[in-house]
């Protein structure tokens, strides 16, 4: 009661503090949502293209930050191995897409549509490519640069028609686009080149054994299970993303803790006569600590409520203004931040509580 009333007694200061703390919380929500969006966008391609073996050049562990070049002819050899049903070749390369004289970088996946693997994980609009003159763009990329299905785009001097828009292909720093394998090879200029093979096993065949046969039969290649390869890509994505995320989140947490500590300390200093009187009246120290902790938790809770109210409309605006920023939030993320903020508020109250010791009885006497 006292804790809340004291805060309410200074409405402007309370509003500013809640605003400051809420901004920090929004920053944390935002970072987590960006991380989740980028994480999903980065690995969704691998997750949704389920293969019994992902075959890459030896020592290449992922497609995000690794270079793998394999000879397409090896696909035929792998396809002849016992238990192998099909082998789909994929060629991944960075390219530039032009429209109206401007070039945009994309992560181009050339695949074999007829084999059903290596293509867009999900379509938001339109259809997949069928011929060499077609392209599927990431939906966020298309929204940002104003592409839509039916548009003609210029890819390294070749004219392509946008036939579809894909989802789960926005890796934050870059977006996927999909063309036929044959067309992708023409861009590179080297025939018979691929980045990886996606191998599917016949029904009842032992996928482990197939991967073993690939490794022994093709020493220059490495074969990963779907689970391994997905884990490799997630690990790679995290190693590039998480340090930045942690750094900014840590800064936000420090700012939040400092703001809260400052407010609580100022509140104690301003109310030092109250605290001294309470001490004189026989208040246990725990009661005084409790007041400060309650105030910290109150501010944190109010700030979280404000942050939640602000964040979702803000996220919608951000996604409209910057479509490549894919934000994904979950109840788990909100709860994680809520818990962290409550812990930080407890930390700030502990910092401020030290001031209570320096409040002396004599201060209240005339």
């Amino acid at each position, binding site marked *: *009661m*006292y804790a809340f*009333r*004291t805060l*309410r*007694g200074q409405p402007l200061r309370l509003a500013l503090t809640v605003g400051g703390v809420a901004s920090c919380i929004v920053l944390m929500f935002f970072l987590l949502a960006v991380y989740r969006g980028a994480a999903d966008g980065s690995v969704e391609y691998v997750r949704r293209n389920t293969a019994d073996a992902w075959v890459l050049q030896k020592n290449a562990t992922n497609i995000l930050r690794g270079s793998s070049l394999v000879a397409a002819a090896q696909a035929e050899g792998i396809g002849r191995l016992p238990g192998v049903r099909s082998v789909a070749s994929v060629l991944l390369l960075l390219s530039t897409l032009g429209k109206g004289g401007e070039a945009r970088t994309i992560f181009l996946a050339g695949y074999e549509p007829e084999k059903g693997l290596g293509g867009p994980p999900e379509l938001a609009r339109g259809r997949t490519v069928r011929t060499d003159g077609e392209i599927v763009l990431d939906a966020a990329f298309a929204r940002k640069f104003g592409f839509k299905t039916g548009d003609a785009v210029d890819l390294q001097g070749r004219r392509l028609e946008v036939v579809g828009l894909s989802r789960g292909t926005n890796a934050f720093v870059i977006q996927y686009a999909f063309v036929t394998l044959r067309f992708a090879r023409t861009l590179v200029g080297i025939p018979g080149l691929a980045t990886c093979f996606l191998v599917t096993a016949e029904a009842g065949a032992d996928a482990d054994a197939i991967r073993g046969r690939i490794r022994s039969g093709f020493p220059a290649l490495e074969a990963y299970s779907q689970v391994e390869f997905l884990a490799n890509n997630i690990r790679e994505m995290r190693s590039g993303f998480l340090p930045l995320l942690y750094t900014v989140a840590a800064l936000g947490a420090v700012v939040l803790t400092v703001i809260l500590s400052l407010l609580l300390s100022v509140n104690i200093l301003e109310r030092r*006569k*109250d605290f001294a*009187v*309470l*001490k*004189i*009246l*026989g*208040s*246990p120290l725990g*009661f005084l600590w409790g007041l400060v902790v309650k105030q910290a938790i109150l501010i944190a809770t109010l700030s979280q409520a404000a942050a939640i109210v602000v964040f979702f409309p803000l996220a919608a605006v951000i996604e409209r203004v910057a479509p490549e920023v894919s934000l994904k939030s979950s109840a788990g993320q909100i709860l994680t931040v809520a818990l962290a903020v409550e812990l930080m508020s407890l930390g700030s109250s502990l910092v401020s509580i030290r001031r209570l010791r320096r409040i002396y*009885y*004599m201060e*209240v*006497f*005339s």
Partner: protein
Amino acid sequence: MSGPGPADFIKGRAFDPPLARGFRPQASTAEKDPRTEPGALADPVVADAVVRLNRVTKTFNGSGPGTTALREVSIEVLPGEMVLLLGPSGSGKTTLLTLAAGLARPTAGSVTLFGRCVEHTPASELQRLRAKSIGFVFQTFLLIDALTAEENVALALRFAGGRRSERAGKARRLFYDLDIAPLARRLPRTMSQGEKQRVAIARALANDPALVLADEPTGSLETRQGFDVIRLLHGQAKARNAALIVASHDLRLKEFADRTLRLQDGALTGM
């Protein structure tokens, strides 16, 4: 706000003449260490004194030379007795009150509060003692601005260990007893000075204290308000048989006091 006048209490008091107790001539104890002086502490004039200061000296040590606020002061206060401490600013009145409340420890001499030696009582126990047995009234009232009058009183009850369910009711009864029921739901900032001090008195009496300490209780009040407030405080303390020590420079309060002690430069100079 009707109640017995000061004269009624003085005429009707049923205890010993206060001037016979407590005050010790300072000259006789000069240069003696009361802690080493045989008999100095084991010589209570009245065994059931609420508070007893025996040759108490209090020195505050700042960065420079220490300041002696009290010099070998000895007093005892009995239940139901009102002792008025008169003296100018800086004479040591407030220091004496803080020592009597167990808020400070003497530099020399001893303070006995409800039979306990303050110097040897842990701070946590003194805190409980204040919460349960001592009431405080301050010159500037020092009510908690954020709380209503009733909540201010309930807070003191909380510290005294009152049950949550009983606090509000007890606070309300006290407001009726003190004839300030209309103030119960009001915030201090909406009250006059006199009203605030009445609420402060209610807070001081909430825990049914055996000792009430008032520091310049009329200092911020107009003459009439001051008179009403001291009459209320005096009457309520008497009704509860609580010892009341009032520090003031207001000579008019002598009319209410059972005993008046004068302090000058930290020493008792007369009665």
